[in-house]
Every structure is written in C-alpha cells, then in structure tokens.
C-alpha cells in the first residue's frame, strides 16, 4: 500500500477529533464512520475518529489533534509521510469513570472559579470524546479559560482507550496553569552531569525540604534557606547544574539572564525585574519553583558613584529579595564567575543564604565527567578514563566536552578516509588533547608550548635528574608511598649552576615527562609601567596555576625577576614587591575561599572497602593539590634568603659543569645525528674539554661539522677527528675555575 501524506487540518474540522481518510483505506482497515483509530506518529500517538474525506481522495490524511500525546500536542508535526500500518483501529468501550487534570489559562481563573463550575463545564465538554490514557485533550477550540485536560487514568482500568458518555464519572485530580504544564513537558530531556553530586544534593535538599515537611518547618519556626549563589570559573557547569536539579525535582524554572532584563528607558529594567519575580511567585503556587539569575554580576554590579542607573536596579533586586515572605516558596539561585564584582549587600544571609563554590574539577571529578560524557560515545574499551583524567589537569567541564567532541570528530575523519573503524580510541583523544587546551589557562601569561624533551636527550647529570624526578615525578606516580611516609610534596625547587649547563632543558624534560600543566614566566611577561600591575599579574598567575594543579610554574632567571632585600638597593622597588608576592603565594597563610576545589577530602575518613585504584587516585589528589615552583638561576648569591628556606624553594639543586664522563655523554648526545668518521675519539675529546659547559660542547660539534663542510666542499659525508681538534683549538671554555669555585661554596 502506498504511503499517506499528511495535510494540515481543515478549519471546519477543528475540535471534531476527526481523522480524514480515503474511503478505500477506511474499508481496508475495517473502519466505519466515526470509528476510533489510533495514529502513531513520531514522538507519540493521536486518537481520532475516522471519517471519509469529502472529495473521497485516497493517499491523504488530515487529523485533528484533539486527543494526543503531550509531546505531539506541543510540537505537532506537519507534512509527515505515514504508512497505513501506523493506523490501528481500537475499540473504545464506554467508561465508568475517568481521572483528569485540568489545565487552565490563568492563575486568576484557577483562584476565583469554584471547582464545581470547572467540574460541570469539563464534564459537559468531554461528553462524546474518545480518550486515551495519559493523552491530553485539547479544548482550545472552545476558546475558554480551560485549555487542556490531561487524562490521568481510566475506569475500568483494563483498557487504555475509551469513550466518555454522560454517565461517565469525572474526577478532577488537580488544576494547573498552561505555563506550568508546558514548562513541565519541556524539561523532560534529562541532563547528565558528572562530578557535582554534592552540590546538586544540597540544592535538591533546599528545594524539597519545604515541600516534604512543611509542618515541621513551621513548628520549628525556621525558614528554609531560599537563596544560593553559585560561584565558579566559566565552564564548570553552573547553569547546567541548575537545569539538572530543576529537572530532577520537577520544579518549574524561571530564568533571568542579566542582559535581557536591562532596558534602555529609565525604570524599564526595574519593571522587568518585578515582573519576573511576580511570575516566579505565581509559579511557586503550583509547585516548587526556581528563579535562576544567570550572570548575576552583570545584573547586580557593585554600586558605585551616586546616580548610575545600575544602582536603582541593584536596589530593586535587594528590596524584591527582602520582600519575599514565608509564603513565597521559591528558591533563588544566582550564578556568577566574578563574585568580587557583586554588590556586597547581596551576599548576606536572608538574600543569598548559601554560597556554593564550584572550582575547576579535581582528578576524581574529571574522571566522572569524562565517563558521563563518553557514555553516549562508542569508545574503544582500551581508552583509560583514569589516564585521560590525569592528562587533563586544568580542564573544566566545557573543555572536557569539547575534548570528547574533538576526539569523536577525529574518529569520523579517520572513518571517512575508509579505515572502517567505528570506535573512538585513545589516539583520537591524544590528537584532541593537542587541539583543546584548558580554559583555565587561556589568556594566562605563562602558557607555553614546549617541544617535549626526554631525559635521555640530556647527557650526564644523573644525580640531578634523580633529584628532579624525586621532587616532580614521584609525587605523581607513587602518591601512596608519599602519604605512607608522611611526606609532603615539595613546594619549590631551585636549580643553580653556571650558565649553559642545561638547567632550562632539565626543567623542560621534567615537564614533558610528568603530564602536569606547565607555566613559564619571564620578566617581559610580568613587568609593566603601572604601579602594582606586575604584582597583580604574578598573583593572577599563581591563582591560575592553582586552578589547574598539579602544575609546574617555571621562573627562569629568577635573579633578574626578583631581587633581594639585602643588597641595599632602594627598598620598595618593583623587585622587592614582586618578591613579597612570591613569598606570600608560595607559603602564605592560606588560600582565598574562592579557590576552593572539590570537596575537602580527608584520607583517614575513607572507607576500608574501597578499592585500590580509587585510593591511589585520592592520594594523588591530596598530595598534588599545590603548585610546584621551579626556579633557575646562575647567580644564587643574589637571591633573597627568605626565598631559600625550606617551605619555599626547599630543594636547592646544584647543576654542576659536566665532568669527564658527563662530557662524554653530552658529546654522544650532540653527535647523535652526525655522521662521524671512524677515527673520532669522543673520550679523548671529553678529556681535553675541561671547563667546557654543555652549551660549549654543543657548539664544538657544530663548529666541527661546519669546518668539515668548509674544507671538503659541500660533498662532505663524514666528520673527521681533525676537524674536532681544529675547532677545539679555536675555542676557549666559557667557564673559569674561579667561577666554579664560587658556585661550590655552600649557599646557606
């Protein structure tokens, strides 16, 4: 049989519940005039009475959605193509009784109209209508205040469809307004959210308590808190959290976006704000309601001056919040990422009672966010969420979702090239990690792209490498051992030594071997002609670094960046101010409350039965919540002594000039890619290059290669030993014995 084309309904058929079909199809389906027929459409179904088209044409279908599923009612499809199989004749026995919910247009009507009148009216209207359980009867064609009737249940309950006659008993379970009805239908899609269980539980409690135990609260004489301020950096899921909680509790949501309220005429914004509160109040009459003020900082900035128009708006908001009395049972939720720019009057109990700080997600939270995000993505089983969570320090929820999207896109791109792989695997995620960077670090001044260096590329210095690994890698890899021995993660490491001895390269290797965020800062980033600007920038840098901990903050040439107070220069210079900021940030009294991340977890309180990996993650989280400062200098004597005490830069590592073995190793590393002649004796070279630094040795190799090109024209294929010796003659070491001696005298 051919498909049916759906046409829009004839105006004269509105409210008749007719479904116009061709007579041929009707007789095929065994339908008579007015027989009930259930039409299934995408998203629901619709109960109609069959009727032949007046032109008797086949292949078309026009149906009146008088009785249909709620989703079909709200979003009617048009121009569908239906199979005749989607039409099922149903039997509609006469009903004994029906339970309904009435949806009316306005709150006033609900308040003032006696239920007797509504009952009588609805009963009269429903007479002769075919109804289906859980369907909605559309009464809009009557053009009265009563808009919809929701069929809750039928009696006898063995049937799902039936006909209402004058003998059917109608029982009204409840009366809603249209807005409530619609908002409930639209909130159906469930949002999933990982890692914010605690915050959402507390919000749910605030919403549900007054509804579940109104009498208890009344008898105790306490009012439930009614305002929550959500604070957190952009992208951590503040708005999503509110939507999720609202969806779970089944509350209605009134959203105020800051810029939407502000109008151009004087007084307009205040009026809009009042209207919003009024709306929330009327919604709250029907059930739990949340008034959500998104981007509160734009709506309610700190009051300044005397007569700026924002002041009036702020004042209006404050009075409206104070004007909420006990009977207004709605919860107010504000969200902002700049809490400092809010008016301080807002942040007191009675207005926003609770402040919930949502920080950048911790390792555990990232893991749960990732598993939620990947729930719908066909992920290859080899993808390890824990490892991915470790690699994504500093990523917020929005970044992680972008990461998953990018990984999926990579997989699609690969698939379109014909590899036939349908799963998203780990290397797709690794590709995506290169593209999606953490938004915590966006616009940060210290963000650097560094080319990865492995430990093997640095010759010699084995004990220095070990010490660096101890202080940077070990806390990441063996956290449980650190906790067991009561070790704290070191706060800072100072590398000092003569120039050209691979201090910077060492740090680069450390950063690339441990997958933590890496920030590097130089004097050019920090200095500014404005007083106080440099200090602010440094403090901001630390704040960002903490937000994406574990993080390495690298201060190269720290002696030029931060001076010493003892050298007798003019005090109060930028250097000394920067020094004091650095000292405070590294070992200050405490963190600002705004920087709180995750839940304050104490390891001892953990349950015994938790599995090992979970515990390990916890350990890692606890022992790596700080920023590791790595500084490098070749003038350690000019550093302030306060910086060098344990608790600040507590590992002070001397990077010595290379000894003979080390030089040999360095030469090997430098000539790794060079074609050497058989007679080249690197050990002899190493013995001859006393006082040469690593950089000097690199230069030596380069010179030798250039010399080879110079002497043998461009056809040189190998570098001979003589070239090395010739270039060695031309060069002199950059270090002196006296210089090395000064480094070797103890610092403290």
């Amino acid at each position, binding site marked *: 049989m051919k498909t049916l084309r759906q046409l829009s309904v004839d105006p004269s058929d509105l409210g008749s519940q007719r479904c116009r079909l061709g007579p041929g199809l009707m007789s095929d389906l065994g339908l008579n005039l007015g027989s009930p027929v259930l039409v299934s459409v995408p998203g629901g179904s619709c109960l109609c009475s069959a009727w*032949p088209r007046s032109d008797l044409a086949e292949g078309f279908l026009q149906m009146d959605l008088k009785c249909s599923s709620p989703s079909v009612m709200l979003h009617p499809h048009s121009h569908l193509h239906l199979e005749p199989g989607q039409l099922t004749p149903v039997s509609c026995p006469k009903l004994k009784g029906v339970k309904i919910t009435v949806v009316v247009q306005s709150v006033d009507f609900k308040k003032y109209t006696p239920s007797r009148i509504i009952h009588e009216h609805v009963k009269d209207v429903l007479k002769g209508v075919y109804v289906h359980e859980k369907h909605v009867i559309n009464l809009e064609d009557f*053009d*009265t205040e009563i808009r919809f009737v929701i069929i809750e249940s039928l009696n006898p309950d063995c049937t799902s469809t039936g006909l209402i006659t004058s003998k059917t008993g109608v029982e009204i379970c409840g009366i809603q307004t249209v807005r409530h009805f619609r908002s409930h239908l639209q909130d159906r899609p469930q949002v999933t959210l990982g890692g914010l269980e605690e915050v959402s539980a507390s919000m749910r409690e605030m919403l549900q308590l007054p509804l579940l135990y109104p009498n208890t609260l009344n008898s105790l004489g306490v009012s439930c808190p009614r305002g929550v301020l959500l604070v957190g950096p952009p992208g951590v899921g503040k708005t999503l959290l509110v939507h999720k909680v609202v969806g779970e509790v089944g509350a209605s949501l009134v959203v105020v976006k800051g810029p939407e309220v502000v109008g151009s005429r004087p007084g307009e914004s205040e009026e809009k704000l009042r209207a919003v509160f009024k709306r929330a109040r009327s919604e709250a009459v029907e059930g739990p309601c949340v008034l959500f003020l998104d981007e509160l900082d734009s709506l309610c900035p700190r009051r300044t001056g005397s007569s700026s128009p924002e002041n009036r708006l702020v004042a209006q908001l404050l009075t409206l919040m104070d004007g909420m009395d006990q009977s207004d049972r709605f919860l107010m939720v504000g969200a902002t990422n700049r809490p400092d720019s809010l008016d301080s009057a807002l942040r007191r109990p009675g207005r926003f009672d609770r402040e919930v700080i949502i920080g950048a997600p911790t390792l555990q939270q990232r893991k749960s966010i990732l598993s939620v995000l990947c729930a719908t993505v066909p992920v290859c089983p080899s993808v390890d969420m824990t490892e991915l969570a470790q690699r994504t320090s500093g990523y917020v929820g929005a970044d992680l979702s972008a990461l998953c999207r990018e990984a999926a896109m990579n997989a699609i791109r690969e698939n379109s090239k014909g590899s036939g792989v349908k799963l998203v695997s780990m290397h797709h995620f690794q590709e995506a990690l290169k593209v999606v960077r953490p938004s915590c670090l966006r616009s940060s001044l210290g963000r650097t792209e560094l080319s990865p260096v492995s430990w093997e590329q640095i010759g010699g210095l084995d004990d220095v490498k070990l010490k660096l690994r101890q202080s940077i890698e070990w806390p990441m890899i063996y956290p449980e051992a650190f906790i067991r021995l009561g070790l704290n993660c070191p706060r800072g490491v100072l590398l000092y030594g003569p120039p050209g001895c691979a201090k910077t390269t060492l740090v680069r290797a450390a950063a690339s071997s441990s997958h933590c965020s890496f920030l590097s800062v130089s004097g050019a980033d920090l200095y500014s002609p404005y007083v106080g600007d440099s200090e602010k920038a440094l403090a901001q840098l630390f704040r960002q670094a903490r937000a994406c901990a574990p993080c390495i903050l690298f201060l190269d040439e720290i002696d030029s960046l931060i001076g010493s107070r003892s050298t007798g220069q003019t005090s109060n210079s930028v250097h000394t101010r920067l020094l004091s900021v650095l000292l405070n940030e590294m070992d200050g009294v405490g963190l600002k409350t705004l920087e709180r991340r995750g839940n304050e977890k104490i390891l001892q309180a953990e349950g015994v039965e938790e599995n090992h990996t979970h515990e390990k993650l916890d350990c890692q989280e606890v022992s790596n919540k700080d920023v590791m400062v790595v500084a490098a200098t070749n003038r350690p004597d000019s550093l302030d002594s306060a910086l060098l005490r344990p608790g600040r830069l507590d590992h002070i590592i001397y990077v010595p000039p290379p000894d003979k073995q080390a030089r040999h190793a360095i030469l090997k590393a430098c000539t790794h890619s060079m074609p050497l002649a058989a007679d080249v004796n690197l050990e002899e070279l190493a013995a001859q290059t006393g006082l040469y630094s690593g950089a000097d040795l690199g230069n030596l190799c380069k010179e030798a290669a250039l010399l080879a090109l110079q002497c043998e024209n461009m056809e040189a294929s190998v570098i001979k030993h003589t070239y090395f010796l010739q270039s060695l003659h031309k060069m002199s070491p950059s270090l002196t014995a006296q210089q090395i001696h000064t480094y070797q005298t103890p610092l403290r």
Partner: protein
Amino acid sequence: MSKPGVASLHEALQKSFQGLENNQKIWTSLLAECVPLLESLGNLAEQSKALSNVQLSITPLRVFPDLEDRLRFKLQEAMDTVLVKLNEKMSSFQSVRDAITNHVSGVVQLYEQLTDSLDLNCVTERSATAPSIADMMEWLQDAGRHYQRQFMKRKLLLQTLRPDDLTLMESAPGRWKSLASQSAEDNITDAFFKVSFFMES
C-alpha cells in the same frame, strides 16, 4: 445494497435537519432576548462603579442617611433580578442545545445499529438530489458542536462574573456579543441549502 437501511437513515436525517432548523430559530430569538438583559447588567455594573468612585459625603446628597448602602443594595437587587432572568434564558439555551445534541446522537446511534448492513460505498454515495449520508452526518455533527461551543462559552462567561470585579461585569455585554461566530452560523445555513432538495423529496 441494502436499501431499507439507507431509507431509515434518510428518514432520521430529514427529521434531524428539521429539528435543527426549528431549534436554530429558537436559539436566534433567545439570543436576541438576551442582549437587552446583558446591556442592563453592564449598565448596572457601571452605576455601581460610579457609586464606588464618588464620595457622597462631599456632595449635597450627604443629607440622606445611609445613601450609599441603600443605593448599593438597590443596584445589587437589580443585578440579581437580571441574573435570575439570564439564568432562565440559559436553561432555555441548554434545552435547545440538548435537543440538537439528541438529534445528532440519535442519527449516530441509528447509524451504529445499521453499520453491518451499510458499507462505505453506500454511505459516501452522492446523487443530484441528495448529498451522501457521511456528509449529512458531518454537517449535523458540526452544527451540534457549534451550539455546544456557543453554549459553553456563554455559560462560562456568566458563571465567572463576580460581584467584586465590576470591570469584568461592565465588559460582559461586549464580550457576549463577540462570542457570536458568524462563519459557523453561515456554515449551518449553507448546510440547510445543500439539503433542501433532500428535505423536499
């Protein structure tokens, strides 16, 4: 072809259209009778409103004791009388509507009894003099729905009037008039023209 079924259905349809025509006339006349009543209701509401707005103590009328209360009582009594009359009219409307619905449901019931002997071809067959049974039943149902709708709207309008909301009551005559739907009435009249040959046969 089962002629007896068609014949009896035709007979019932003829009767129903006849009844519908009669009832339509009654309905129109009832509507006409209601208009002055509603106008007086609106008028009374306006007077009550004026009474609430005026301060009698600063007018020469202050010498009459309890004037405001007495006037209000009078006005409310008058409103009551009008509303009682309107209520009577509503019951007449209801009986007209019930009569029409009975006609419609009578035909539908008869059709349901005869379903087995009537196939769809027979129901949708048209001739020069008579429209098909399906069309005629459709027109009858449409007319029944129209009167049902009209009745419910008017009834709800009167039922939602409140003595404390005078503005609502003042606007009642206007809203009453706006409820009339000329196009639906025209459709019914059209249907009468379409069935005129059939009625005469």
